[in-house]
């Protein structure tokens, strides 16, 4: 070991479906300088120790988005994750394939579910046929129009967000952070004529299943901030169509609920979300909670200074004007 290297222990996920009964972790130890990318370590393992290791990669420069995997439980690009800080934080480097996509072999996953969701949002400009884009000429945008994209065109489709997302892992109806961030990108594009249709469709196609846990924003190597753009989409969807789903009814209901007393009336919110009849299935379990926490059924005393709150609503809540 030379003076500027450190011993780095890799515990690498190994699994060949159809051949191996269960996945296992294989340990490799290398001497590496702290700034060595995890990907470089894995390639050295493959080239010098174990040619059977399966992994996907290409550019090694955080551009192509091919080498996303879990490094110490975080979904990220192996090429831009350095070994030094990982060893410092975790003592070793546990490398696993991405989540929410079936394993093909070792660190390689089948990305079909991710791409299917991408395809569903129709990630291309839909131009009004009556106003075709001029051929052979650029259509310039103002800086303000470009700002509205808020970084979403930076996405390299690495699927790290899709892997990190607990909603994807729990409900096939959720399109995932990347597809929604892309949808946002087209919904704010001034050249796109399908904005309204896109926003109406997404209300019923999983938009409200986002947990706003921000794990996608944490995972994204390009700072696309999908969770924040999903929030934007929710507000835009309500603005074009009003509240049609449980999720949007809950958001709008919550907003109205707080206007009344300044503090949450829990029982009323359930009614605002589900309607009187929709509440009925909730009743049996609700009663069990009520027995322990009787306050859920009462209207809380209003805050002081409600007129200030009302003044804020009157100024900023344009709901009634639609």
């Amino acid at each position: 070991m030379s003076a500027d290297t450190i011993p780095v222990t890799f515990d690498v996920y190994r699994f060949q479906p159809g051949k191996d009964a269960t996945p296992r972790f294989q340990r490799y130890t290398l001497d590496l300088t702290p700034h060595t990318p995890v990907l470089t370590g894995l390639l050295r393992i493959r080239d010098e120790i174990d040619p059977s290791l399966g992994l996907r990669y290409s550019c090694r420069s955080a551009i192509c988005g091919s080498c996303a995997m879990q490094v110490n439980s975080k979904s990220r690009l192996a090429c831009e994750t350095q070994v030094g800080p990982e060893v410092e934080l975790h003592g070793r480097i546990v490398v696993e394939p991405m989540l929410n996509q079936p394993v093909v072999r070792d660190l390689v996953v089948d990305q079909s579910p991710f791409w299917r969701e991408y395809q569903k949002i129709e990630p291309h400009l839909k131009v009004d046929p009556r106003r075709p884009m001029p051929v052979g000429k650029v259509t310039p945008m103002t800086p303000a129009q470009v700002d509205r994209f808020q970084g979403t065109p930076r996405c390299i489709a690495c699927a790290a967000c899709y892997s990190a997302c607990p909603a994807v892992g729990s409900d096939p109806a959720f399109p995932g952070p990347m597809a929604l961030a892309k949808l946002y990108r087209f919904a704010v594009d001034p050249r796109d004529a399908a904005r309204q249709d896109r926003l109406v469709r997404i209300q019923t196609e999983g938009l409200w299943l986002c947990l706003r846990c921000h794990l996608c924003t944490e995972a994204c190597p390009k700072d696309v901030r999908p969770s924040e753009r999903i929030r934007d989409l929710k507000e835009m969807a309500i603005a074009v169509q009003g509240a049609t789903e449980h999720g949007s009814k809950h958001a709008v209901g919550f907003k109205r609920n707080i206007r009344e007393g300044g503090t949450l009336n829990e029982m009323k919110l359930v009614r605002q979300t589900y309607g009187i009849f929709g509440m009925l299935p909730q009743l049996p379990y609700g009663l069990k909670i009520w027995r322990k926490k009787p306050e859920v059924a009462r209207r809380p005393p209003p805050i002081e200074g409600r007129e200030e709150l009302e003044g804020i609503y009157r100024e900023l809540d344009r709901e009634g004007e639609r």
Partner: protein
Amino acid sequence: MKLAYYPGCVAKESGRELDLSTRWVCQALGIELAEFPKFSCCGSGFIDEANELLSIAINARNLAIAEAAGLDLMTVCSTCQGMLSLAKLRMEDPAVRAKVDATLKPLGINYRGTSKVTHLLRVLVEDVGLEAIRAKVKRPLAGLKVGAFYGCHLLRPADEMDWESPEEPHAFENLLSALGAEPVLYRGRVMCCGFPIQFVKAETAGRIAGRQILDAKDHGADAMATPCPLCHISLDAYQRPAAKLVGRPLDMPVFHLPQLVALAFGASPKDLGFSRHMVSPEAALAKLAPSAR
């Protein structure tokens, strides 16, 4: 130490055992809690889905109330913490600031952005300090294996919350150790509890909650503890349906953070509102060394 106490909606109503135990702990530590009946709801991540600017303005008003008293604001809820912190951050954008100011000023509300937003967990670990906490422990929670559950909005987005690493936070575990408990490390501790979609799709929310509870259980936790009453609703109040959804019995007692602190400081369990939990913490309390019960 004097702080503007922002209990949030749940601790004032259906989660009042959290309020109860927060007051107990702060009194024991000589932290004065200034109360402001003018505080409104933070919007809980729902109002901003319908109208972000409205949500920011409501929270700027909350912050201005603490500022007028010259106090930092303390939350006891990860979501309140997130919403108030984000509002403060968004108010640094001149365009947002101008719009919100134009609404608040005519109402006589002057937002300056001078009050810090902090959470009880941070107050205990950073301001009181673990040494002082240790010195207050009368009955160490020895023998109790506790899985800390942070709640997303206390940690993420990390660049905006500006606190511990959202992958490897330590504050809560360090506090648990100071109380004599044995912290259990598991991946679910920094994951989502499912609460935000409890009213969108209860089955999905339940599966997510169930997964985190199972993770804690499989790592040997006798109990979980959370600094967020919304996580508590998911993990405790809706644990029974979650168990059905994940197909395994869970039986996991879930404590509010200050309940465990109070317990270690010598509070009587009957003063901490345990009877209000859906999952009885009896089994966890029984694990404590006899001297601690």
